[in-house]
């Protein structure tokens, strides 16, 4: 998309206007503000000098042109942001703006200098400063943070996946770092970021006590299936399953407790076995091709289903988790043991809770799942700076256990430096610490998840590609012995 606007400068503040922009616009005199009646935009024109008897509203020179391609995309698809027709060597700022469902504003911005042909390409050029630096085609998304003055401890997650995230991308003259809302942009493009591809269907599931949402890909099916489980935050988060369905997997986002209600949920592992059965028996799903994806607490469930349960997943992806599991306990009791005593936890200098120190690896089998019994391919995705759970140590123990029975060839470990606990789909903003409702009776706490924004975002992008390739190989390409031409 290409848009244009009157080039604007701060009224009466010649120091704020970039002299190179003024020269290129052919300015031969003073700048004067002319009030307009549209938006908050103030129009500026060039005043006449005796040599140049031009009336007002003369648009001189080239007109800046902003395009974002494509303007509609899935959330894991990249876009190209391009600004053309700028003066050569002009400093500009590219900024993204999004209003979340909670009505908070999120932004990211990068500082650029145009080429001699007046072009800024976010894909090819270096950001010299802002919320991201360097050559980052998608920096305007993954480096998003709440705008100054926002509430603290926020996390950006889309709950309604039937509508897209709307992100506006704007270009401003000069290198701007604050007060964006006080200045009119040179141009703005609106983009849509979707979790659901066209034709994906969303079904509420309430079956034998199991609660969740099933997303079915476009097409007649049947499809490979996925059981998708989130972590200790609870509630029903649909976006990852919606995205998996957009990639061809019928995915059940499973709800297993309400936020803050884990202690009272008292879930048995049988609940998850039932959920897995519901997926394998669904008419839109191929029963011999059902995988499991779990994050955080969800990985304990995933590994239980893969190792000690009677169900037979085709493959398993575990993000930021482990096999820590005291025997004979329900899931909520497990979580309670690990996370229950908040008073004992360490805090960092910002009063964020650090949980990882509480958990230790035991060689005692009564404290962990017997992963030696896993018979399907497993992919472990972990961050080396995970401050919530010692996932890398767990992964190493899992590897040793599986190697002891000759099954380590089933294991794929992805471990990322400076990456925290919340490994989300690509281009999602990074949260080093956020508010978390651990217990609805005890209110909110702030939890340290870890990770540094840039390496964490790289990990999200890389791991998602690899997760999709892993799923495609095991759930689509790999043929069961019964298949015939």
């Amino acid at each position, binding site marked *: *998309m*290409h*848009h*244009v*606007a009157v080039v604007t400068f701060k009224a009466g503040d010649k120091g704020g206007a970039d002299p190179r922009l003024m020269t290129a616009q052919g300015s031969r005199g003073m700048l004067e503000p*002319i009030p307009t009646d*549209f*938006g908050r*935009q103030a*129009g500026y024109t060039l005043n006449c000098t005796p040599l140049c008897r*031009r*009336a*007002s*509203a*003369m*648009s001189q*020179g*080239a*007109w800046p*042109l*902003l*395009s974002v*391609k*494509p*303007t*509609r*995309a*899935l959330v894991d*698809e990249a876009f190209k942001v391009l600004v*053309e*027709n700028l003066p050569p060597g002009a400093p500009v700022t590219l900024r993204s703006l999004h209003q979340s469902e909670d009505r908070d504003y999120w932004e990211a911005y990068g500082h650029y200098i145009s080429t001699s042909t007046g072009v800024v390409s976010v894909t090819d050029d270096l950001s010299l400063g802002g919320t991201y630096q360097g050559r980052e085609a998608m920096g305007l998304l993954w480096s998003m943070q709440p705008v100054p003055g926002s509430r603290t401890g926020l996390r950006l997650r889309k709950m309604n996946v039937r509508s897209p995230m709307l992100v506006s991308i704007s270009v401003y003259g000069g290198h701007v770092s604050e007060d964006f809302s006080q200045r009119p*942009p040179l*141009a*703005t*493009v*609106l*983009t*849509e970021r*979707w979790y659901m*591809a*066209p*034709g994906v269907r969303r079904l509420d599931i309430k079956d034998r006590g199991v609660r969740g949402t099933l997303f079915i890909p*476009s*097409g*007649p099916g*049947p*499809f*490979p299936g996925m059981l998708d489980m989130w972590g200790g935050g609870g509630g029903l988060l649909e976006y990852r399953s919606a995205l998996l369905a957009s990639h*061809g997997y019928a995915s059940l986002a499973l709800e297993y407790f309400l936020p803050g209600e884990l202690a009272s949920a008292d879930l048995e592992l049988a609940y998850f076995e039932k959920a897995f059965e519901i997926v394998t028996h669904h008419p839109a799903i*191929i029963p011999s*091709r059902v995988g499991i994806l779990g994050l955080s607490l969800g990985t304990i469930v995933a590994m239980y289903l893969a190792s000690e349960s009677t169900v037979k997943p085709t493959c398993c992806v575990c993000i930021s988790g482990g096999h820590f599991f005291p025997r004979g306990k329900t899931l909520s009791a497990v979580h309670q043991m690990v996370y229950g005593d908040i008073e004992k936890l360490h805090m960092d200098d910002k009063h964020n809770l650090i949980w990882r120190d509480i958990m230790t690896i035991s060689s005692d089998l009564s404290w962990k799942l017997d992963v030696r019994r896993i018979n399907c391919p497993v992919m472990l995705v972990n961050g080396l700076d995970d401050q919530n759970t010692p996932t890398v140590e767990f992964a190493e123990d899992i590897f040793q256990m599986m190697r002891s029975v000759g099954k380590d060839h089933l294991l794929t470990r992805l471990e990322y430096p400076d990456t925290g606990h919340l490994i989300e789909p690509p281009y999602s903003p990074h949260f080093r610490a956020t508010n978390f409702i651990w217990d609805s009776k005890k209110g909110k706490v702030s939890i340290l998840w870890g990770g540094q924004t840039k390496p964490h975002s790289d990990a999200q992008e890389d791991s998602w590609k690899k997760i999709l390739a892993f799923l*495609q190989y095991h*759930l*689509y*390409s790999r*043929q069961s012995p*019964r*298949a*015939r*031409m």
Partner: protein
Amino acid sequence: MNVKHRAVKLSVHPSRGLVDEKFVIVVQSVPPGVQLTVHAFHRCEGGHGWEAFAHYVSDAHGSVNVSQHASMGGTYSGVEQMGLLWSLRPVPGTKPGLRLRKMNVQTPMEFTISVHLGYRTEGFMDQAALASQVVERWYMAPGVRRIPVTKDGLSATLFLPSGPGPFPAILDLWGDASQLVEYRAALLASHGFASLPLDYLTPKMSQDTSKMVDNSYFEKAFRFLQHHPQVLADRIAMLAISYGSSFMLKMLAYSDVVKPTCAVCINGTHMQPIIAKQEDLFAFYNHYSDKIQVNEKKQKIMKMMWLPITSDPTLKVDVGRVQCPLLLVVGEDDQSWPSSESAVDMKEMMKRAGNSHLLTILSYPNAGHLIEPPYSPHSKASSFRSISIQQKTLWGGQCVAHAYAQEDCWKKMLAFLHHHLYAAHYGPPASRLTAKF
């Protein structure tokens, strides 16, 4: 192939796009060397089904990539990334003479792309596909605004790009149609141009008074754009196809008000009597209508009405008077209008007048009259219901060549418009400027 034990993966990337963007269709997880048919289906606003299909063989990896592999046959052959769109045709049993056009541009066109086992040419709805994917194709990008315009008796729609504006603008004149056609203008707004498609054949004032519009109507439309707060008064272009070109060329040559920065004329002609009223124009057509030929399929070859190009200057717009860059798009196989012959004559006139440096001609062999945005299905002949004529008109053009012409011409047209409306500026004389604020 036992489909119960096999999961075939079909992806169309991107699954949402503007109508002029390309997509990549990939089939995976089939065995190598398997014959497959990739099929596209669309149900248009009129309720008719349109389809296209192509035959492929999967490669050693068990996949088909439509943008890289050759179609062995179907509604197109060879390597054609977008062939499933531009080779669409009405499903068998549909009444003949249809044209695919989207009238409501605020919703996307939905296509279902599917893959079937074996080489099929029919009965696609009777058997389940191996896989399918719904694809959305939009004329309007997010944030583009659609504003009906009825001020001063104008019958038009204004499409504004998203963003603060103001924007360069395009006055868009369609051809001889029975209602306002918006899709090209909506697409232009998605590329950064405020666009005003203008209904000059059936505006409300004509319906009320039974009188056709005259030149002042177009001047009013041009002034409307100039005075609009979100339009840059000195960056307004004109775009016209077919019958609309006749009015546009006349304005370019003779109007004191309509002074666009540049103009694009698709398959038009400069031949017409220099008279003000539309009624006279229709009388002119009727007078020469006995020159129209009819081919063996009973389709009217309208262009014979105009040929040979007259040397009588009173019967041609004096394009030597045109003062702005002019892009002529010509489908050399146009059977309804004498585009090719007119372009040659216009070039001569401009050479003699000394303004031929303003002229660019894009001439496409084997392309027909209806040069539409890219990937639109080609219509070789259709029932043409205009104000004056009801018949099957032969538009001309060979399917593949016409599709290439649409794709190439659109790119070049956008580049021409961007160059003149965004990048360059000529500093028009001060007398033409209007106060903006």
